């Protein structure tokens, strides 16, 4: 649970008329039991099922609880008899933001089909990891795997022979620094730092000298149209304070070639004020 959930739980406990907990709950046990009973190949759809049940209990306004990758420990076990396979997969998972736990050989050394096992409550994380590594099987963890993976593991990736030829994603591209230039007739300046990790693109913009009355939108433009990063509030686009936007982007960023700052006033876009070319080196 992150700090906001913990504070919510404290406040719910402290409320004089607390009726039921407004806490997001872990995936219900019944679903896990169902999966265990099935004890065969359970596909990703299962995790979606668990996800739905979780949201249902979380109260009317709660969004589906997000998986905190930095707080989810992933153990990687090599069951394919290929040295370095687990290490490579762990590096790839680290790039996706997961916390890596034990990386070692699995109990079985001739597994053909890889799978992602989860400790109860971590089915959503497991299905995300399965998608990232293109592994089809998502299962509740067994005791013997848990012993090898260690007590801190939330998710255990067991690599079989089908992962040998996989190859993992290339290392992330270095961050790129851009300088905005003012569009004719506008004033103001700024810089942007773009960093692509896996499919997460982080953009940090620092803007100076823009109108303090208007809300500014920061966006990517290219052949497919525009992609949103976010809005910089009125009054905070003047002094070069950093604004960080992180977004999931399609694997191919190439069609987007311009980063723009657009002014919005009186409920309508009031023109592009700053632009910067996005070099192809940000694509990795």
């Amino acid at each position: 649970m992150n700090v906001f959930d913990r504070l919510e739980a404290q406040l719910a406990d402290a409320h004089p008329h607390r009726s039921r907990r407004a806490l997001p709950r872990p995936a219900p046990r019944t679903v896990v039991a169902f999966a265990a009973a099935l004890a065969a190949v359970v596909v990703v759809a299962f995790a979606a099922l668990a996800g739905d049940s979780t949201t249902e209990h979380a109260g009317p306004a709660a969004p589906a609880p997000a998986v905190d990758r930095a707080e989810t420990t992933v153990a990687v076990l090599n069951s394919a008899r290929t040295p370095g396979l687990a290490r490579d997969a762990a590096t790839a998972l680290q790039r996706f933001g997961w916390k890596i736990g034990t990386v070692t050989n699995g109990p079985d050394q001739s597994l053909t089909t890889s799978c992602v096992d989860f400790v109860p409550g971590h089915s959503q994380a497991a299905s995300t990891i399965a998608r990232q590594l293109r592994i089809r099987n998502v299962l509740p963890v067994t005791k013997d795997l848990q012993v090898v993976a260690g007590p801190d593991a939330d998710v255990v990736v067991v690599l079989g022979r089908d992962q040998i030829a996989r190859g993992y994603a290339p290392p992330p591209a270095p961050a790129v620094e851009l300088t905005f230039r003012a569009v004719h007739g506008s004033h103001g300046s700024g810089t942007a730092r773009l960093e692509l990790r896996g499919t997460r693109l982080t953009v940090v913009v620092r803007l100076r000298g823009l109108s303090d009355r208007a809300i500014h939108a920061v966006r990517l433009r290219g052949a497919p149209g525009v992609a949103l990063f976010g809005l910089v509030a009125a009054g905070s686009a003047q002094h070069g304070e950093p604004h960080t936007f992180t977004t999931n982007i399609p694997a191919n960023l190439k069609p987007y070639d311009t980063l723009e700052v657009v002014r919005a006033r009186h409920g309508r876009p009031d023109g592009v004020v700053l632009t910067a070319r996005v070099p192809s080196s940000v694509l990795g």
Partner: protein
Amino acid sequence: VGNVSDTSDEALLLAARRDADAFAAFYRRHARPLAGFLVRRTRDPEAAADLLAETFAAALTGLDRFDPARGDGAAWLYGIAHHQLARWQRRGAVERRARRRLHMERLELSDTDLRAVEACDDATVALEGLPPDQRAAIHARVVQEQDYAAIAAASGSTEPAVRQRVSRGLAALRARLTREEQA
């Protein structure tokens, strides 16, 4: 409480006197934008998290004093936050009175927690307090520059309704930002 996303802050705060879920809904709507405001003011995520906890605790203990006739719910919450900020600036320490009254322990903060609090200093978070329809309309109109007819068609709504969502959403954002300026 019914459909929470359509319920006004004022209605939630009035319901929250007897209903913990209404208070939780109010908390979820405002916690992150308020954390962002506190981070901008303090430049210290730890102090911001502490002030956030004390502000909501003070709001919870003071629910009976909230009077919708004297201002909207968000303004009331930010008023409490301003008060806490001023005390913190004067004394160099965050007040604990409301949390003590409620027997709330001080939250232990990990690096991940601090980063999560710091990440609230992001204007997209400011949109979180808006109803989803207004948020979607602002994205479509202001960021993607779609015209009102297209947005209306895509969202199965009418043009005047979309116009109203955009202008109400922007007005709400402006009001919140103005409150933040008036420290």
